[in-house]
């Protein structure tokens, strides 16, 4: 299997403080990797380092065959960030205009949108069940609908790799469940490699093949079954907490 992401001995510092230390893991093509850990464990920092938005202090990241610091294959990468709830509610773009932005990575300047592109946008919206919303303003939609629009934006370029950072933080449990079902289906049918960051271990256990448990360092990297049977994790969490995580899904 080809490795789409390879992280080796990654260390990141912020204002002189080490926020990630000696992280090593890899993600294979077609895999669904979950990165989990408590608040402040460095999950979002890791995502930012992967995307080249945060400088690396030590180690290296290879993503889609390129170093993260000189990455150019943006058209093969879809990104769904957290905090879309903080989006400017009066931003005047329609749903179609927002999703079109996902196509810019694959274009040369002046990055014009063609009629074929517009058709692709509408097809993606239909696929995610929100085709009827294409002319609505993004600020008029519910949180769940907005997140689907952002997912459509991340997927419209048909990326090889989808990176999601707490994508359902603002959604209610029922919509969250449907969202993860949809991602899982996409991973299985189109082979899109998925990297999901969440603080919810139960979600990881249900959908991801492997998980990376992070708390400034990589405390565990393996399958969910291995996590549940790991004596090190039992010692770390305590038997009761580990049982709760492993049997919640």
């Amino acid at each position: 299997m080809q490795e789409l992401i390879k992280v080796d001995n990654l260390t990141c510092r912020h204002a002189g403080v080490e926020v990630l230390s000696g992280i090593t893991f890899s993600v294979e093509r077609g895999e669904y990797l979950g990165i989990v850990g408590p608040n402040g464990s460095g999950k979002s920092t890791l995502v930012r380092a992967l995307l080249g938005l945060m400088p690396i202090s030590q180690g290296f990241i290879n993503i889609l065959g390129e170093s993260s610091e000189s990455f150019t294959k943006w058209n093969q990468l879809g990104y769904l960030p957290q905090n879309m709830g903080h989006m400017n509610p009066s931003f005047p773009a329609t749903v179609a205009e927002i999703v079109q932005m996902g196509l810019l990575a694959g274009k040369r300047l002046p990055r014009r949108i063609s009629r074929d592109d517009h058709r692709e946008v509408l097809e993606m919206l239909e696929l995610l069940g929100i085709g009827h919303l294409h002319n609505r303003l993004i600020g008029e939609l519910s949180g769940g609908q907005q997140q689907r629009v952002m997912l459509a934006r991340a997927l419209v370029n048909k990326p090889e790799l989808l990176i999601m950072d707490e994508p359902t933080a603002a959604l209610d449990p029922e919509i969250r469940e449907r969202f993860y079902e949809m991602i899982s289906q996409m991973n299985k049918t189109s082979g899109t490699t998925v990297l999901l960051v969440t603080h919810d271990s139960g979600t990881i256990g249900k959908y991801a093949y492997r998980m990376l448990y992070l708390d400034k360092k990589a405390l565990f990297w393996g399958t969910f079954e291995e996590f549940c049977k790991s004596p090190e994790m039992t010692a770390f969490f305590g038997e009761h907490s580990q049982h709760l995580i492993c049997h919640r899904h």
Partner: protein
Amino acid sequence: MIEMFSYGFIQRALLAGILIGVLCAVLGVFLVLRRLSLIGDGLAHTTFGAVALALFAGLQGAAMLLVSLPAMLLVSIGILKLASKARLGGDAAIGIVSSVGISLGVMLAVVGKGYGVDLFSYLFGSILAISSAELVIAAALFIIVMALLWFYYNELVALTFNEEIASVSGIKVGFLNNLLAALTALTVVLAMKLVGIMLISALLILPASAALQVARGFRMTVILAVLFSIFSVVGGIVISFMLNLPSGATIILLAFTVFSLSFLLRRIRALSHRY
């Protein structure tokens, strides 16, 4: 009334006003949505210093742009650098640079006695006094700024929506931020003749804000902002000429009227949806 359009100075004023109004409207949409409206205000205040410097160097009319244009380009980049390198917010950086600009202007006005009246005309605008040379420069800069805005339009929309997402789409965020600041600086230098240093930011903010009240879609917002701006500029120049009022202030008050009507329309629309 028709007769007024046969005067050369009115024709020049209307043409220059439309060119500057269009630039302010398009840039204004990006600046308002990025919460950078005050960069126009800060740059305008700094222009006061640049104009004083040009007058101090003995330059008049179109020749003043030789000093004020490069000076303002440097200032616009300086504001962004100060905000990032000195760990300041954009508002603090704008505040520092604009107050230095005004102080420099006041200092030069006192030291170089005798051009206080000229400086005053730049504070409140004098579009009816625009010369043919200034109109040609305005047209040339209009073409440059609009060409760059056209070329980077989709990137600027993405940047305005979310900087992080734009960056992950391979868009050079730092370059675009510098470009937006530089284009704003060029526009501010042109607009000081139209509405004056004190009112430039209103021309950047009001048409864009009015369009945001009623438009559906980003492209529609830009188009409406342009139409509102042209209406305010042309209407303002005509009214000010007919009633012998200051043109800059008339343009801005008309733009505010358009904004108020747009706001009202939005409220009525919202209420009609509710009931």
